[in-house]
């Protein structure tokens, strides 16, 4: 596995831990759409942007 891929896996682990921690702490007591709904919405948006940048940079030689 290459260094960039390890970074990607690390980012995934951090995101899952963050989702897990948020779910079982803050979101357990927050009954608003600005709480769990917004949080769960922002996580994949950030991931899609991150992955798109990752692929464009790492695979640039093949994307010309």
């Amino acid at each position, binding site marked *: *596995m*290459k260094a960039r*891929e390890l970074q*990607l*896996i690390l*980012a*995934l682990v951090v*995101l*899952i831990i963050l*989702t*897990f921690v948020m*779910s*079982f702490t803050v*979101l*357990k*007591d*927050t*009954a*608003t*759409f600005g*709480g*769990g*709904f917004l949080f*769960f*919405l922002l*996580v*994949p*948006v950030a*991931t*899609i942007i991150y*992955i*798109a940048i*990752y*692929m*464009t940079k790492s*695979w640039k*030689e*093949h*994307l010309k």
Partner: protein
Amino acid sequence: MSSIWIYLAIVIWFAFGALISWQARKRLGKGIAEYFLANRKIGSVIGAFTLSTTVYSAFMMIGLVGLVYKTGIGAFGFEIVFLVASLVLLAIFIPRFWIAGKKYGYVTPAELLGDRYQNRAIAVIVAIIFIVTLIPYTSVQLMGAGLLAETLSGGGIPYWLGSLILPIIAFIYAWWAGMRSVAWTDALQGTIMLVGSLALLGFIAIYLFPEGMFTTIAASFPEKLKFTWGFNMWLGLTLPWIFFMLLIPQVSQRFFILKDVKSIRGMIIGFGIFGLIYTVLVTIFGLAALHIVPGLEVADQAMPSLLSLVPTALALTIAISIFAASVSTINSIVLSLSSIVGRDIYRALSPTISENRELFWGKMLIPIMFLVAWGFAQLKLGMIGILSTMSSGGLMSILPALIGAFFWKRGTAAAVIASSIPSVIVIGWFYIAGLKPLGIWPPVWGLIISTVIYVVVSYLTRPPEKAGEFVDYTKNWQANAKALKE
């Protein structure tokens, strides 16, 4: 709603799909790779649609809506963890699957494992695990369709008939022109899924929640906006879902069909955008149903009940979008399983078989698989969401073998056989008997068992000669893709 309207909508929808399928048929060439992989020539847009619609099935509009209805926002979080993990794993695994397919000519993921571990028995075992676990998953799609048709028609279309119409349509699309037909019609199904869902969102927001949907739900059902899942439920449902994309053959087979690296990127980004939009919409429908059709005893009835309250034209559009989600998933499953039986089981029994003969037997299995899945759907087992997870849970037994194939040269054939068989038996046994030792769900136990056995046995046995070559080749996929192009 009158059954006639439903039949009419199905006929119109089928006619559009058949037209596309016919166009695909005109381009159908000869050979296994042509029929089952569209000759590895699928581009970004079709690739993104076929991946998205294969993954997002009737489970979403029936099962996930029901799960949100029953357990609140936690179900959204569970689905989001799946999406995020999938995107990352796709970026790592698709290029490896793709380059291995180009180099070694693989048609199925079971074939890849059998060749990497240099043991034909592995391909057979994995193929059998795929078949056993995917029958309930396919039947889930048919259950959703049967339930929806019966509820919408007020019993005019009985469950057995509602669950039979879709496999017939899916059979025609898949049988006629293989992967190209399935992938092209998936683009139609995906468009219908998004348009139908957006139309429903508009209607709900304007007509059913004039005072604002979010405010109303936050005031009426605040507990559903809190994360109320227990840890073991979260882990037991989320863990198999995280690896779903790698383990389900109709999904991983799609990693072989892309024409170039641009298409890989397009497929992943397109899948992410489709998945996000669809998941958000479905979650909103589940929450909206709490207010509009409160107190349902069967959570999976939330969406059908919701649709019984909207205008006929809109209800029909949504119903067709759910049927579209089902068809796009089941034709992919059956096409994939038929290729697996032809290539990994029949070829193992008769190694000198010609490609035409293999294709013939693969196609013969398509109607049989549909009939078996339909028969299973008549049993109406459990909640749709749980049943779907049970299917992917069973596939956790081969996860160590799959990851090891690409990343661990030490992984051996004996380890794959020794780890996958007991693991899948334990998972199936625990699910059927309702066992959760220490409160831990069956897929977690299955993964622990298969990982420990895989590692220990790999250290005790000799890896095949091809292991090093395979791992290095797929690791350096960028350089090798360039070399193949030149």
